[in-house]
């Protein structure tokens, strides 16, 4: 959790820069001369003989005693533009290139990373990984065993994008944001708007000793946008943010989000919150919109079903899980009602966690984590799948990875990260409006807001962006100062209505943290609107 004395945090200005630096993880290398060292005659990343270098790396690892090895050469880029009101705040680019090698020797892992991308350089990194693996071996410890995965001799994949955002001129990006800000500020009391465009491009190349070689291009796009309204007498201020969810798509997604066309509506929502009625504390039926519910799924379903958390590996940081021990909950824990089906996948079009092959060389499958309300499976990597062997065999399920192994940079070692984890639509063709119409006394919540959950994922509290009072099946006006408190299994078991296929939407976390040292992840959560009965709502507008 503690970011150690981060010498990069003191770089110039703006939260965007801080975020970019936190995300950047600049290179591992020969400290004073940190740079990608290219082979003679190579001047650009695109000119690197990547396959040969990856083969050299895994060959060197084998020669140094590895029974299995993989190597990644990647280029990780970010581009962002930040504005407030009618002006630019910051624009920037980050770029990081290098190699990461894993070696399995005597059943123990070693990892090394380098920016020396010459043949000698990658081989040296591989030998280093093997040497570290040898040092990490603890006599008597159970050896790492990898679930098998079929070789992919020449895989290529790219995110579902049409226009690479890195090709769009910065002035076009800035103008779009400033135009949107201007629209929002046409609303009375809307005095401030902060908006950003944030893009990620990862060129990821992977090879392992199974004979797999893959090349992938990942693009993700995000538009943080917050309009703030201030009352004339300074007695209140209210914001509307998180208006557009991140996606694994390109510039065409930004255009389709129609920031300029929608900004006024977002501004009006911020201003209306100034006049909204403070909520009365008590128990309400909640009708949660997909733009809100995705985050509740992320925190209370996706994180607790990570197998390493359930096994105690994150105890000193993110915590463990109430969904444990696996042998006592798989097939038995009643997580929610029968209509609750939670799917893990990395294949949904435009998902932030969507990928062709993971950093174990596995093509991720689509699997149910919760089936008809019962805990059915965990998120796994190749190392983890065998931990569940007896459950899988008993239930005629294959002992194979679900493809959830990811590193956030070439310089980070890959580990289990969540896939897209989604609430599947119900059989009945109903939508948000139908759920509201069926509710006598409730609160409808749109947009994700404040969120907090304990280290085993039992007790959570969520705010939101816009809150609607529901009376007799109709929206009766806006509320403010709303947050709900929940105990995870009770909350999900109170779900009694969910939307159908047509009401399915995806939300996403762009910077999800896990591990020590921390790595970032990006993941989508699809869901339909859902109703939860009799949930405890508090009023957060304290005065003293």
């Amino acid at each position, binding site marked *: *959790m*503690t970011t150690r*004395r981060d010498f*990069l945090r*003191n770089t*110039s*200005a703006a939260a965007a*820069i801080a975020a970019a630096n936190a995300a*950047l993880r*600049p*290179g*591992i*290398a*020969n*400290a*004073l*001369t*940190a*740079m*990608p060292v290219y082979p003679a005659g190579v*001047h650009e990343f695109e000119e690197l003989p990547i396959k040969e270098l990856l083969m050299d790396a895994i060959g060197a690892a084998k020669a140094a005693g590895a029974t299995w090895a993989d190597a990644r050469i990647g280029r990780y880029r970010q581009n962002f533009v930040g504005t407030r009101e009618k*002006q*630019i705040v*910051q*624009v920037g*680019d980050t*770029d990081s290139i290098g190699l990461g090698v894993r070696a399995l020797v005597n059943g123990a892992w070693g990892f*090394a*990373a*380098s*920016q*020396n991308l010459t043949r000698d350089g990658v081989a040296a990194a591989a030998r280093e990984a093997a040497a*570290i693996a040898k040092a990490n071996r603890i006599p008597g410890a159970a050896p790492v065993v990898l679930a098998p995965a079929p070789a992919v001799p020449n895989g290529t994949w790219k995110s579902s994008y049409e226009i690479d955002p890195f090709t769009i*001129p*910065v002035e076009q990006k800035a103008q779009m944001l400033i135009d949107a800000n201007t629209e929002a500020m046409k609303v009375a009391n809307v*005095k401030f708007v902060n908006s950003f465009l944030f893009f990620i491009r990862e060129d990821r190349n992977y090879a392992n000793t199974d004979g797999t070689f893959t090349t992938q291009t990942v693009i993700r796009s995000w538009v943080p946008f917050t309009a703030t309204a*201030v*009352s004339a007498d*300074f007695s209140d*201020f209210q914001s509307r943010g998180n208006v557009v969810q991140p996606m694994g798509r390109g510039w065409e997604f930004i255009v389709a989000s129609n920031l300029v066309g929608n900004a006024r509506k977002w501004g009006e929502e911020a201003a209306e919150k100034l006049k909204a009625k403070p909520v009365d504390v008590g128990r309400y039926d909640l009708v949660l919109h997909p733009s809100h519910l995705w985050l509740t799924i992320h925190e209370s379903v996706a994180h607790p079903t990570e197998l390493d958390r359930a*096994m*105690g*590996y*994150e*105890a*000193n940081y993110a*915590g463990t899980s109430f969904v444990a021990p696996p042998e006592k909950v798989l097939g038995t824990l009643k997580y929610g009602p029968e209509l609750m089906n939670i799917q893990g996948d990395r294949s949904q079009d435009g998902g932030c966690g969507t990928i062709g092959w993971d950093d174990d060389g596995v093509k991720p499958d689509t699997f149910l984590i919760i089936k008809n309300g019962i805990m059915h499976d965990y998120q796994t990597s190749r190392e983890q799948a065998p931990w569940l062997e007896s459950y899988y065999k008993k239930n005629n399920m294959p002992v194979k990875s679900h493809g959830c192994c990811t590193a956030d940079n070439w310089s980070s*070692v890959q580990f289990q990260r969540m896939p897209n984890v989604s609430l599947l639509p119900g059989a009945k063709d109903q939508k948000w409006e139908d759920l509201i119409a069926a509710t006598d006394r409730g609160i409808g919540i749109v947009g994700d807001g404040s969120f*907090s959950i304990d*280290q085993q994922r039992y*007790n959570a*509290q969520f705010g939101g962006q816009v809150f609607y009072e529901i009376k007799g099946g109709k929206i009766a006006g806006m509320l403010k100062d709303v*947050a709900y*408190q929940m105990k995870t299994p009770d909350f999900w078991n109170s779900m009694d209505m969910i939307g159908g296929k047509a009401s399915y939407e995806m939300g996403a976390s762009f910077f999800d943290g896990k591990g020590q*040292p921390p790595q970032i992840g990006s993941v989508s959560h699809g869901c339909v609107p859902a109703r939860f009965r009799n949930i*405890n709502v*508090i009023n*957060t507008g*304290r005065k*003293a």
Partner: protein
Amino acid sequence: MSRSLRSLLRGGETAADPRVMTREQSQALTDRTIKLSRAEGIQVNVGGGYTANIRFADNRISTAGGVSTAALNIQSSFGPKHAVVSTNDFSDAGLERAVRQSEALAKLAPDDPESMPLLGQQEYENVNSYFDATGNLGPEGRAAAARIAIDACKAAGDLKAAGYIVTGIGANAVGNNKGLFAYQSGTSANYTLTVRTVDGTGSGWAGADHPDWSQLDVKAVAQRAIDKARLSKNPAAVEPGRYTVILEPQAVGDLVQLLAFALDARSADEGRSAFSKQGGGTKVGDKIVDERVTLYTDPADPQLLSNSFDGQGLAAHRVAWIENGVLKRLTYSRFWAQKKNQPPDAGTNAVKLAGGTQSIDDLIKSTPRGILVTRLWYLRPVDPRTVLYTGLTRDGTFLIENGKVSKAVKNMRFNESPLFMLNNLEGLGRAERVAGTEAGGDVVMPALKVRDFNFTSLSDAV
């Protein structure tokens, strides 16, 4: 790393450590970059060093490694246009590419009406945050420290240790084409440990942090986490509500650091801060918390030893934000400072709440009924109008009855503001560095005893 890791790990390095850029090397690099510039203004930030860690869980070492990092940020500006490019390619060609890219981006960028000219040369405090005990520490030293906790838990049979030790040596520098150059090197050492009981009903946390590894009492950390794990077994439920609470320094740091982040002058002037005054203006000069509260930054404070300049090279000095309960000052960015005719501030990243003289035991003894809190977790803003946060207690929450810790209680969620809490002050302990706030940074806090701390629900999490 490959070729050089082993040679880097040889002991015996001193302040002239080859893993860390010296002042001269940093200046040579920034000068080299500045010479490439064709912009009106160029600012170069360079940072890097060597960080090594060991991670363990389930009474076993899970990962250990070392990472050398270095990165360079270039901000080019043409009048009110500017842009930043970051690179880790320090070759002539790499620097040239990054400089040209930042210039191209800056020219394309719309005007920033709030852009400020680069700073000229500044006077900096002399902060020595480099310690040989950290610089000379090798992987064996970290492993031996980890083994103290692992071996004790293994021997106990009913305990599992999970922890993380990370140490670093590094340097950061800023230079620009207006004659400014700032440099600071330093070391860091941080240890956090969670001990859980095998039956899953108890969990105890302890941590230590200081630039000087020799100041970390790793045996005491292990003992504290073990004691707390055992004491916290089979917690009882108490009714959520308002309690007198003793927060250990870590828990105070978790919450009060967030107050330090809320001290922005501009937001207050604009009416969107807890420090805005109804009707206009700010609360500067008002008594906002108990008079025993003094919150300040000071890079040279021997407990803080924080960076003596910010990302633009602006010198950091001692500033009291709250003094004897009165809000003395809010933080001014350079732009807002100029607009409001104020000196600019280097920020509140490193912060200290002045302590009292009481021990935690003293605070407990004076408490007929209350809750002792080890640390807080997953703090998130709920209402910026009052700096209200929610979060939960974690890894050691106990009931105090009649001046003694009587039993373990279940963790609870709170909805509380550091402002309200510091108004309800009953007692202060001695200030110490804390090891694990969610935002990180140099944070020094005392234990506090406060009344009416607002717990809103129970958690079954252990």
